[in-house]
């Protein structure tokens, strides 16, 4: 799974030569074999490395503040979102929805690596949401739709249909 993400990311970044990856341990943590140095381990680490390689540092944030915000959402993805139980997912969605209320992207107004990896990581959850739930997590749905239509991001994942009109009355219960 993580390997397909990294492949898609490489294509998004326009890297010419695809890298060789393997995985480690029961959790299948991705490993990048590197000719000129030790192997790199971990999805976030490798993804950040690829961004540097492609000379797109703005995707990691162009100020110390931005860099930290991007970093913490990447960490959130691999620590909280991955391997979360059904109950936890509900809380994660609720919190993320709240967070995105006044934001275009995870790091505010700029598209970053955090959006890409969160999108990859949350896709399997959003696919399963009923229309009613998509409406409940309106901000996530809006952000998600935005990212999946961002040129070159979606690649290995099927598109999720987002309805433009609300089907259910908007009253929160």
């Amino acid at each position, binding site marked *: 799974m993580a390997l397909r993400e990294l492949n898609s990311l490489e294509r998004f970044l326009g890297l010419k030569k695809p890298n060789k990856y393997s995985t480690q341990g029961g959790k299948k943590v991705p490993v990048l074999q590197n000719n000129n140095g030790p192997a790199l381990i*971990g999805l976030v*680490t490798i993804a950040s*490395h690829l961004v540097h390689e492609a000379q797109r540092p703005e995707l990691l944030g162009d100020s110390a503040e931005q860099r930290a915000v991007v970093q*913490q959402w990447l960490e959130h993805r691999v620590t909280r979102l991955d391997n979360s139980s059904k109950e936890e997912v509900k*809380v994660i969605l609720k919190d*993320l929805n709240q967070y995105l209320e006044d934001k275009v992207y995870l790091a505010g107004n700029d598209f970053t690596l955090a959006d890409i990896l969160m999108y990859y990581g949350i896709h399997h959850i959003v696919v399963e949401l009923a229309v009613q739930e998509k409406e409940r997590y309106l901000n996530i749905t809006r952000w998600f739709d935005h990212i999946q239509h961002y040129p070159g991001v979606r690649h290995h994942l099927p598109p999720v249909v987002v309805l433009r009109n609300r089907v259910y009355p908007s009253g929160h219960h």
Partner: protein
Amino acid sequence: MKVYISDGNPHCIKVLAALELTGVKCDTEVVSHEERVVPHFTHPVLPVLLLPDGQHLFSPNSICQYLFDISSQNPTDATNQWLEWEATNLQPAVLQSLHMVALQGKHVEAAAVMKEPLNWLEQSLSRKNTPFLTTEAVSVADIVLWAALYPLLSDSGFDAGELRSVRGWFERVGGLKACQTAAHRVLQGKGVEALKTFLQKLPATQTQRRDSPTNANEAGDGEHVMTEEEIEEAAQVWSEGLKASPAVTERKHPILPQEGKRNVLLTSALPYVNNVPHLGNIIGCVLSADVFARYGRLRGWNLLYVCGTDEYGTATENKAREEGLTPQEICDKYHAVHAEIYQWFQIDFDFFGRTTTERQTEIAQDIFWRLHERGFLLEDTVEQLRCESCQRFLADRFVEGECPHCRYPEARGDQCDKCGRLINAVELRNPQCKVCKETPVIRSSKHLFLNLPKLEDELEQWLDKSTGSGDWTANARHIARSWLRDGLKPRCITRDLVWGTPVPRQEYKEKVFYVWFDAPIGYLSITANYTDQWEKWWKNPQQVELYNFMAKDNVPFHSVVFPCSLLGAQDNYTLVNHLVATEYLNYEDTKFSKSRGVGVFGDMAKDTGIPSDVWRFYLLYLRPEGQDSAFSWSDMALKNNSELLNNLGNFINRAGMFVSKFFDGRVPEMLLNEDDKRLIAQVRWELKQYIQLLDKVRIRDALKCILNISRHGNQYIQVNEPWKKIKGGDGDRQRAGTVTGVSVNVACLLSVVLEPYMPSVSQTIRQQLQAPPTCVSTMLQNTGTFICSLRAGHCIGTVSPLFQKLENEQIEVLRKRFGGQQTPSSSSAAVETKPRSGAAQDTDPERVKQLTALVAEQGNKVRVLKAQKAEKSVIEKEVVTLLDLKKQLSLAEGKNPEPAAQKGKKK
């Protein structure tokens, strides 16, 4: 820029060390663990750094990285990798390990958890020749990893093993002044002790291994891997079948402790009489205790379950005034309401009593005198409001006035409903007597206090022993500990009231015992009203194990205050061994509120037309274990339709139907092959899990095991397709027979494990299968024995569906009705439910004919529209009408339309 930290939070060590080391200027604010600094998070997260641009950094690692970044030490691949490893691998192990060390004293297990990550770190360090993780100099990676490991590695009781490189590096980083300062600030020299509060508040998901069996069950994808031996053993046990098993012992009252038996005394918190209990109250105490009581009886324990209404206090007096009755009449009236509700929920008390009895006075006064004689009572004068016109002191709720904190004009004497703060009645502005509206005056009044500080040492000793050996829920341990930690203060045990147990001293003859002192004694007096030999239960800690069930707000009284009364009375009382406390159940993201008409209250549940067993199932499915949960109508419908109807009910019904339809109602011969044995082993494993969990009062988790069993069963039927095989040759027919026979035996086991949760359904299943009554106790013996209790040739009875679908419309109506917009309507508004199949005896031939014609006509209409390629919405509308007509038709024919639809879907 500002950083928010909390005391004894290990994550703060990282941040404080990074701050010290980089020298970044930043304000620090200490807040409580519960403070929600980051507004978008439901659960509090700390530490948090508020950035100059108003954004919050909530990840300690990102905060550290930021602090290094602005000090010109940019992240590198190497630091990124260590930080990621810390967050994904090390941190989960550290939290789990700390939890074991600090709260459970399991040092060996804690070290085992850390073994893998520490070895990895050792290997990485030993391969390098730099003093620090990434370079010659300290980086953010060193600080983060050191801080994560510090509480464990600095604990003398924690044995990390050899690890020479880790030790060297750990001391090198720890030698930095910044690190020492940070560690001291968070741990205050108390080591892991300082982290207790923090750790107790962590959600269980962060402190338990994801790969342990119970969690795997929750995640839904964790399949237990079976060994060959396990499978053979399971098949062996299964084929032994029912032997001369212990006869089912009838319950004979009075139940008394018996030598050589496990004697279990079970109480659930006494519900306050003048409130109709809501669903949260019901799941919090009586229902949870009932499941455990039923389970214990099936396990053959000698068990007594008592409960009753708590009837004294100001609230009763006020209510009586409102309704123009005497307090006694109010209690009589509402006691009956309670009893009826619990009966409807099938709460099987051995005795449901009340606190306003002679025995209560006797026992409470006896305990009082014993405390008095032993010098555990103090006398003091208290300033109180007195109403001169009513000629009495105004306790608690007899006075109202303006809240001194938030100025809410209708604050009560003990608490403000608006801001929630506790109030001392004399602090109220413009106080008013609730009865005559006169302004009261301040007078002093003499009161008696229980000298808790004098009992503190004894209590602590007892508490250590009880929590060490018994099954106390985490919240109960935590609340009891925090009360002790804050130090105990004397507590007033008397009140200026009429409605209560009288204080038996001349100078206190106008006063009664305060409810918190009096009410728990109700457990004893209620038992005394059940049997004269009550002391065999209550003064017999050698033979009796006591379980108390309650919601968390009741924990202080059961873990600290009441045990102190009993310890001080020095009469060999039975004290609580297992304290089982739930969190709160909310109602659709809000709170239950009687006054606003929000939520379902006990007396309304039966008016919903949803059977009591389904209510029990759903409430137990959501039982707030570990964290609050919320009742939701749509979720209830979902769980009913997906779990009860499509999973459990579907399996049991299919198994029974196959026996009836294909084998004339006789259980066929079973020749087990590997697949069958594997299923038997899987089911047996779930049964063992179920027993392990329920022994530890993990009621909600054990319910998941039941659902897993029927899931396995459904899958087994689905793969083996007996309905096809039955039409094949001899070999196939034999196969169909085996699968059917094994399935119907799994169904029989399900009826057994369901008994504590859904007693009526359990009973119905056994009736349908005509199962021998001994199968119940046999299968729940020891660690769980799954046997073939319905032998080949056994005749089963008539099989019919167990559950009904909850339709969306029905649920919407209920949601509206209990949503608080409209006043709760009377029982006449009960939703119409569909008649049970088999129950619709009177079929009307006229109506059937009429409907058949209508269905044909409507079917034609749809076909014509489709042929004309009419608009989709138009066709759909007609299809809906058609389906509705078909449904009406099958109902009129006496068939249940649901199971038919369901079967079609499964195949």
